[in-house]
């Protein structure tokens, strides 16, 4: 790329074309005062402080909006420029608290000095929490302002303390507009705007109400970007050290720094370099860390004696677990691992199940979210993971988001979608509910729950009929197209429109946009997978991508958004009943003997049970003992009344967790594991990026790292390969046995995450899958037919219940329900119901209602809203007080064994 050379303050500076003078100066380490410029935001030119003198340009141009040109001569610090800047700042200070800015004793004044105000200075006279980190202070110092020529006017706005995580003190606001711009430009939320004019200007929400009553999502980006003390976190203490790690909540895998002070995590800061999130975080990531030091954390092993838990020593607990588990046959045992735990934890857990317990009955919660992705995409492509990377979406021509409520469940990926739309991408949203994403969409297909196959096949038929397919790609890269084409016959537009409830023109338009606005990316999540035909849904998305050649290229592909922080990793590590690490089949004799040699023990040749069938087998008494790590099936399984009975029948249940979850209460022994802040390891995010998790604080009480506990049980039961000294050693073993992780080591991960497949230490990682050929060789078209959901509404249960997630909570709430602030923002579950349905039932917004299905009933609060279409009600599954999964249908997908969480029939009545 060509370089532009310019002179700033006599210094020669090299800049890239398109940079602004301000950026060029900053890159050369030259300070130009500014309040409104920010690398995350578009140039604004609002504060007029970054003005400079540029030869051959009249007046004082703002450096933040002036692009660099060859040979430019810039002066940033002349008397004339500073004179103007001084006036601007003096005017700003005329209605801004100024003690912290201009008192000449500011830096020297010690505690208990008596100052001119004739009071003892306890915290110095500086009460602003931003003191010494304030950009306005820097500017005042730079300009040497020591007195104020204008009469001081107080604004005296009341401080808005309504948000649980931050204050808004508008008296300190300098109206730089950064909070307004970040909220609108980056987040697409627009909770605040500058209202009124002149002296009355201020940053306010719609109707100037407290921030908590607005559509604010509490991500705290405004707080991060505020240059002064107007927006401050409620915890203002500063950490003494920061540890780089990866967020423990969702599958996006945001990089963050945990701030530590006195051995406690007390702040979180987004990490910019080498991360998927570019420094941005959502409310859970930034503020949801209180659970780490929550008083309810499990600190000691607990053994149930006479129905009550009693504290026990590690030796006693491990001995008991080892003896008990040793007393069962392999087929009577099951291990449920955790997508919340690290790769190392999962690797050791499945190794323990396979080598020591001699069973392949090992699974984890991916069964309940993305098992169809693994099953379906393996059939189509040969590899069941996101084909492209998060950062590519911004370059897409079309984004087809089906069955994903991205702003709630993957907030940082939603920022990328927002960016894509700003860059001109056409966003097509297919969702029965009017989710937030619909606001940015070009087209919204409001299809009936469970009609995805019909919708996608209908679109494909249009593409084929109108000749919009990529025949060259299909001929060269794919197979079985002719059989597939025959299957399309059944999906004429009329019947598709009838099944899906989407007007014909919209289906056709969506098909045309997807096929022509290349590159087109498909994003999907649980709305596709959690059906009794989830695998078919996944295959349909794969067919669509292959049909148009939208795969194996940048900004395209089929992109399942994984739910848990390490659900991808837990699958990669072989915490699945049918495969060893790296998806190597347990039924393959060659693979089996490779692992037998490496692990030093005989292994079971038969496929184990998936978690949904483990629960069923427990109910039937076939599984007698279970080792459950970091999972909470009593809220997450479908039909939990049944699941509860099943777990009750177990003779021996070990639960390894950080809190006494609903499930842990049923355990015979509880082993206290640690949170992500207390251990080393790696998480693999949704785009296959393996990233480091680093220990920031010591384990709470006597709790131990999860891999350590499994190793100790393994050793006690006579297992050989469990003598790991640290997590890094485990990764070495993983790399030696897992081809796709072959080149991954902790040393390499120090420089940032690596995307698998990464087979050798020199391999740079793979951002895009299937570029030259598919993992299975040729991409396979699979004919599909439409199958309705297993349970449809009838007279007795006239409404469809669909379940989902809230931004403020994570899964069964084991962690987020322990964070006080998140429970202020969302304190209870509710059932969303359309005004038309509500009116028929005589239900008003906020009423207590009873939701009843064939399997159980739940009392909760009604939220009457147009977000849910008529005939469909919606609940989240986070809340133990109103567990949606008491209602859901345990009907399983025949291939992936995932339950149908997204559709069941219910009726709603007044409680």
């Amino acid at each position: 790329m060509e370089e532009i050379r310019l002179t700033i303050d006599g210094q020669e500076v090299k800049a890239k074309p398109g940079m602004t003078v301000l950026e060029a100066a900053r890159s050369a380490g030259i300070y130009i005062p500014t309040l409104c410029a920010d690398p995350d935001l578009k140039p604004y030119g609002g504060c007029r402080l970054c003005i400079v003198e540029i030869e051959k340009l009249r007046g004082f141009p703002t450096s933040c909006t002036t692009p660099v040109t060859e040979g430019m001569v810039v002066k940033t610090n002349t008397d004339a420029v500073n004179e103007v800047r001084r006036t601007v700042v003096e005017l700003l200070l005329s209605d801004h608290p100024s003690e912290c800015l201009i008192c000449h004793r500011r830096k020297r004044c010690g505690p208990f000095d008596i100052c001119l105000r004739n009071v003892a200075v306890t915290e110095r006279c500086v009460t602003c929490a931003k003191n010494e980190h304030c950009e306005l202070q820097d500017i005042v110092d730079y300009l040497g302002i020591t007195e104020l020529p204008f009469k001081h006017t107080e604004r005296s706005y009341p401080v808005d303390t309504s948000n649980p995580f931050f204050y808004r003190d508008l008296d300190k606001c300098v109206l730089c507009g950064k909070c307004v711009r970040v909220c609108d430009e980056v987040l697409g939320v627009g909770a605040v705007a500058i209202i009124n004019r002149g002296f009355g200007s201020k940053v306010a929400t719609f109707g100037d109400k407290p921030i908590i009553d607005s559509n604010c999502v509490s991500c705290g980006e405004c707080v991060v970007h505020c240059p002064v003390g107007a927006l401050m976190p409620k915890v203002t203490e500063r950490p003494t050290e920061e540890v780089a790690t990866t967020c423990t909540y969702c599958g996006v895998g945001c990089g963050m720094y945990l701030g530590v002070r006195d051995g406690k995590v007390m702040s979180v800061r987004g990490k910019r370099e080498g991360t998927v999130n570019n420094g941005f975080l959502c409310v859970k990531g930034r503020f949801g860390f209180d659970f780490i030091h929550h008083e309810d954390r499990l600190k000691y092993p607990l053994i149930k004696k006479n129905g009550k838990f009693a504290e026990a020593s590690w030796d006693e607990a491990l001995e008991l677990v080892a003896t008990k588990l040793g007393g069962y046959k392999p087929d009577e045992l099951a291990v449920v691992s955790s997508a919340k735990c690290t790769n190392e934890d999962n690797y050791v857990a499945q190794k323990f199940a396979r080598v020591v317990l001699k069973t392949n009955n090992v699974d984890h919660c991916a069964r309940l979210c993305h098992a169809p992705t693994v099953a379906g995409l393996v059939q189509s492509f040969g590899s069941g993971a996101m084909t492209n990377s998060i950062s590519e979406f911004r370059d897409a021509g079309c984004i087809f988001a089906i069955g994903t409520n991205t702003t709630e469940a993957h907030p940082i990926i939603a920022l990328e979608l927002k960016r894509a739309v700003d860059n001109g991408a056409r966003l097509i949203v297919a969702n029965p509910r009017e989710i937030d994403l619909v606001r940015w969409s070009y087209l919204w297909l409001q299809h009936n729950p469970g009609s995805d196959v019909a919708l996608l096949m209908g679109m494909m038929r249009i593409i084929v009929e109108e000749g919009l397919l990529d025949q060259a790609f299909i001929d060269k890269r794919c197979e079985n197209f002719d059989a597939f084409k025959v299957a399309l016959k059944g999906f004429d537009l009329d019947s598709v429109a009838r099944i899906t409830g989407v007007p014909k023109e919209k289906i056709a338009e969506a098909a045309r946009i997807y096929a022509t606005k290349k590159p087109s990316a498909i994003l999907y999540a649980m709305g596709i997978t959690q059906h009794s035909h989830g695998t078919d849904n996944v295959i349909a998305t794969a067919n669509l991508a292959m049909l148009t050649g939208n795969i194996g290229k940048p900004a395209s592909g089929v992109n399942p958004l994984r739910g848990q922080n390490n659900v991808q990793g837990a699958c990669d590590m072989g915490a699945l009943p049918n495969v060893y690490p790296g998806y190597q089949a347990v039924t393959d004799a060659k693979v089996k003997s490779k692992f037998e040699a490496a692990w030093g023990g005989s292994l079971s040749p038969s496929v184990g049970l998936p978690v949904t069938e483990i629960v069923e087998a427990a109910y039937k008494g076939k599984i007698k003992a279970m080792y459950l790590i970091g999972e909470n099936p009593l809220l997450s399984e479908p039909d939990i009344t049944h699941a509860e009975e099943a777990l009750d029948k177990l003779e021996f249940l070990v639960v390894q967790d950080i809190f006494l979850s609903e499930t842990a209460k049923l355990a015979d022994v509880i082993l206290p594991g640690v949170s992500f802040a207390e251990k080393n390891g790696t998480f693999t995010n949704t785009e296959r990026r393996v990233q480091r998790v680093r220990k920031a604080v010591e384990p709470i009480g006597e709790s131990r790292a999860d891999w350590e506990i499994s190793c100790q049980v393994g050793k006690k039961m006579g297992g050989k390969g469990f003598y790991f000294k640290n997590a890094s050693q485990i990764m070495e073993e993983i790399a030696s046995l897992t081809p796709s992780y072959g080149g991954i080591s902790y040393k390499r991960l120090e420089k940032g995450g690596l995307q698998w497949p990464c087979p050798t230490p020199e391999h740079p990682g793979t951002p895009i899958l299937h570029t030259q050929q598919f993992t299975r060789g040729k991409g396979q078209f699979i004919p599909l037919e439409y199958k309705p959901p297993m349970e449809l509404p009838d007279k007795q249960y006239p409404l469809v219940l669909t379940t989902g997630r809230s931004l403020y909570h994570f899964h069964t709430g084991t962690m987020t329900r322990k964070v006080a602030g998140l429970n202020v923002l969302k304190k209870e579950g509710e059932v969303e119901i359309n005004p038309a349905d509500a009116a028929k039932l005589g239900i008003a917004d906020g009423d207590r209602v009873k939701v009843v299905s064939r399997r159980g009933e739940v009392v909760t609060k009604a939220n009457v809203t147009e977000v849910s279409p008529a005939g469909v009600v919606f609940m989240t599954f986070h809340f133990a007080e109103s567990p949606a999964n008491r209602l859901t249908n345990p009907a399983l997908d025949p291939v992936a064994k995932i339950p149908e969480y997204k559709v069941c029939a219910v009726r709603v009545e007044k409680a």
Partner: protein
Amino acid sequence: MELDIAKESERITANCSRDSSNLIPILQEAQGKFGYLPAEAMQKFARFLKLPESTVFGVSTFYAQFKLAPTGRNKITVCRGTACHVRGGVRILREVERQLGIKPGETTNDMENTLETIACFGSCALAPVMVVDKNVYGRMTTTRVAQILGKTK
């Protein structure tokens, strides 16, 4: 007669494209129809134009032509421009305030009159000027205020 805000708002946006540049014309039409901008209407417009509600609120509060509370049947505007000021505009304003018992920006309790000021009406030759709805009264005197206001009742 009370207007149905939701229905009227939809009628206002019916013939518009969903381009955000339509915001001000839409707000002007709503201001004309309702006499002010009801919160419900602003929310409808925000959703229609795919704009944040706060942005619509920001625009509504920036321009003097938009009101956030209902205004009276008659709008009385007293000019505060230089020429009117020199010719005693302040005294006219004080007299109107006294007669109506309200300050600029306020509306009488019976919802009959709303009082406003303007920086310059542009009829300086007629200074001091007072405007009642669409009628302009030039060369105003305090004694004529009562007369004119009597007419509006």
